[in-house]
């Protein structure tokens, strides 16, 4: 059968990227710092976020969007902090995308926010591909996960600025090999800032809260142009 070829040449992420750029402009105008949390299921994202909202809420206007394939259990848990929280149930989708964020913001009466946390669906593959208009991408990694995980899921670690190493209180008990894990992280992202945390004991939580506040200040007061 004779056929002809029709050239198309189109990046299939282009729609998401355009929506993410629009969200970024909106967040910039509103002065909201947006933090996208990525991780495998069970790394402690929700526990970290629960503790973070509780710590920041007295000083800052904080809120959270929470993505899960099913249930609103996480949103219920997080709402106990008193901060506005909205669940995004993604059904078949394995990640959040910019369109879902735009839809969730619509009609959400959270008021103006200083910091918006987005808890992505627990998965290190797909969420790494989707820009949500965030300022800060944080990969949450617990000490119970393999030390070579950054090499297996390089894009998530490569595109993040911060690695939150959670459950550090049980590092010795589970034989966590710090040097090997951090070497893997550096091999995919030498600039990655690594923070050791325990939401349970509070280790590292002050530094984590400081980092968020520093980033917020930097966003609120852009550095003077260099001449």
């Amino acid at each position, binding site marked *: 059968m004779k056929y002809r*070829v029709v050239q*198309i040449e189109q990046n299939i992420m282009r729609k998401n990227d355009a929506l993410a750029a629009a969200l970024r402009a909106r967040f910039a105008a509103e002065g909201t710092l947006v933090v996208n949390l990525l991780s495998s299921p069970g790394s402690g994202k929700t526990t970290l976020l629960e503790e973070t909202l509780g710590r920041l809420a007295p000083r800052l206007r904080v809120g959270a969007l929470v993505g899960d394939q*099913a249930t609103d259990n996480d949103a219920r848990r997080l709402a106990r902090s008193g901060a506005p929280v909205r669940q995004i149930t993604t059904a078949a989708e394995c990640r959040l995308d910019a369109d879902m964020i735009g839809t969730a913001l619509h009609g959400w009466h959270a008021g103006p926010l200083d910091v918006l946390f987005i808890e992505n669906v627990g998965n290190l593959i797909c969420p790494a591909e989707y820009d949500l208009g965030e300022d800060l991408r944080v990969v949450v990694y617990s000490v119970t996960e393999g030390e070579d995980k950054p090499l297996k899921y390089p894009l998530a670690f490569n595109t993040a600025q911060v690695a939150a190493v959670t459950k550090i209180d049980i590092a010795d008990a589970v034989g966590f090999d710090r040097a090997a894990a951090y070497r893997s992280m550096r091999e995919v992202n030498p600039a990655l800032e690594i923070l050791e945390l325990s939401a349970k004991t509070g280790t590292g939580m002050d530094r984590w809260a400081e980092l968020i506040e520093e980033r917020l200040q930097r966003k609120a007061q852009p550095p003077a142009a260099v001449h």
Partner: protein
Amino acid sequence: MCSVFASTAGLAFDPVVRYGTVKASLSQVPKMFGSSIRKEVLVHELSVALSLLQGIEETASRDGIERVTAVHVRVGTMSGIAPDALRFSWELATAGTVAADSVLRIEDVPLAVRCERCGEDREPGAASGLVCPICGAICPTIVRGRELQLVAMEVPA
């Protein structure tokens, strides 16, 4: 961006994926491709297949094309796409559309990083970090391997 819906009630067991009139049980997948393909990964491929289809449908409707026999795509190894799962998803997504029974031709693009020390683009092996295979330098700048592109389609002449 993607219109995929699943019954959430049975999610932990065997979600039914619906798109238009297409229904498929995700439990069919391991039987077809081996248990190495995880359900969450297939869902990702299905949403990519639907985005590809959208591009095809737009072009076909613009050019008055009624049938597409093959579709060329470029997929980077870092994009998290399993080619077999994408082919399976393509079959599901295109049933009853202009691209029904079309062949998906996938061009793999290996990961390449910029090695500043060598002054060259290099291809590290799988799961070996973003490290230059020649000099061992860490190279965080990805130059190729994240592609997810709809390249072209073949239509009857």
